[in-house]
């Protein structure tokens, strides 16, 4: 029956989602076909009923005020925010001072680019830990954290199994390095927080042609221990104030999982 093919598209038609030409043809058919016209009426009634039934809950004015206050631009920075900014600024100064000394002994554009990346990573690590909500997905379960990144970053990666390793996963968040999206995971080991950053190597290498290999990094130039490597098209950074051995252990777990 000809009408069957129309009826299958009836909801799409009523949602206004058919191509323009098909919409016009459907309009003409509905006007001339009593059966499709009756069906269309029923479906429109259903849409209206859902519209009415769906608009059900109204927020209180008190709650509205609370939200408005929470997102209103603040004239003065809070003590907490001020502290965070001061801490971040201090780290930038320290990293900047150490990297500039380093650059003095090894001048060159490549080294400057590398230092820029490392100091950015250090800033991201510190600024996140200073935040009142360092992670957007709070879970110790890698099977919860990994899918959370789906659709948020343009790549997938594996999280290691941590059983009996001493490390625990605290959660994750999206991050950006020079406007490139990446994953930021936070781990805990003996009360030390360690950040693991994952970015697409392709994106990084297009912006920073200099090699970011770990040999090029002098650990003395950063106030943290850090390891970085590339694997499967992804660039990993593991950074924190934990011991170099702990940083290396977590890096190995990631390398084994990838």
């Amino acid at each position, binding site marked *: 029956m000809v*009408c*069957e093919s129309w*009826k*299958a598209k*009836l*909801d*799409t*038609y*009523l*949602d*206004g*989602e058919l191509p323009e030409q098909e*919409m016009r043809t459907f*309009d003409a058919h509905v006007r001339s076909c009593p*059966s499709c016209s*009756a*069906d*269309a*009426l*029923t479906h*429109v*009634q*259903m*849409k*209206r*009923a*859902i*519209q*009415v*039934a*769906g*608009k*059900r*809950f*109204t*927020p209180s004015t008190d*709650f*509205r005020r*609370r*939200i*408005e206050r*929470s*997102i*209103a*631009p603040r004239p003065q920075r809070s003590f907490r925010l001020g502290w965070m900014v001061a801490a971040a600024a201090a780290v930038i100064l320290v990293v900047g001072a150490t990297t500039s000394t380093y650059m003095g002994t090894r001048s060159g554009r490549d080294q400057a680019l590398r230092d820029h990346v490392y100091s950015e990573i250090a800033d991201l690590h510190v600024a996140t830990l200073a935040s009142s*909500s360092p992670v*957007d*997905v*709070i*879970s110790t379960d890698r099977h*919860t954290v990994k899918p*959370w990144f*789906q*659709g948020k970053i343009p790549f997938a990666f594996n999280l290691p199994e941590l059983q009996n390793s001493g490390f625990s996963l605290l959660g994750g968040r*999206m991050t*950006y390095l020079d406007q490139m999206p990446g994953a930021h995971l936070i781990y805990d080991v003996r009360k030390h927080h360690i950040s693991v950053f994952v970015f697409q190597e392709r994106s990084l290498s297009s912006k920073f042609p200099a090699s970011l290999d770990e040999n090029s990094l002098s650990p003395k130039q950063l106030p943290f221990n850090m390891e970085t490597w590339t694997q499967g098209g992804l660039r990993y950074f593991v950074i924190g104030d934990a011991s170099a051995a702990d940083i290396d252990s977590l890096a190995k777990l990631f390398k084994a999982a990838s």
Partner: protein
Amino acid sequence: MSYGNKTTVYWFTLVCVPEESLPSESFEQLAMPHFERLYNFACWLTENRQEAEDLVQETYAKALKGFSSFQPGTNFRAWIYKILRNTFLTSRTGLKATSIVQLDLEGEEETLPAVKETPESILLQRSDGQLVQQALEQLPVAYREILLLCEVEEMSYQEISAALAIPMGTVMSRLSRARKTLRDGLRPRFQKG
């Protein structure tokens, strides 16, 4: 029919929202017009007003924090609904709600039965809104949310696709199944009535 203009309406919305060169103070101007709708949507998802308030509050906090990552020229409404939904899905209530239901036949196109006389048509003529509310409450959360986005929020398929992070084909098939499930849910209520 007025539904034919739906796409035009949303293009109009996209064009009119001043999303280029967004200064931080414009977040409030962009976000607050969606407040009541977001709260309504949150109530339907959580089925609890207190949890809905927490969900909306967290959504606004996350959206404000991540506002610099919002890409001008893209749809703000779909962006903030996506944040709300992701926040809900990672909450305890959300994990519980989504773990119960498995949409195992999703993706398969469904042919709707050609029903001449439908119980819901008679039911709807009686304008019994409470029965429709109850039937909506009984829907799995994945069906409830897509119906609300389409019918109450009047989002285009493209916006729904962005808000739920699912392909357009899945939007159509899930919507179709949600409508069928709602109709099936209304039948026994009608028979009781």
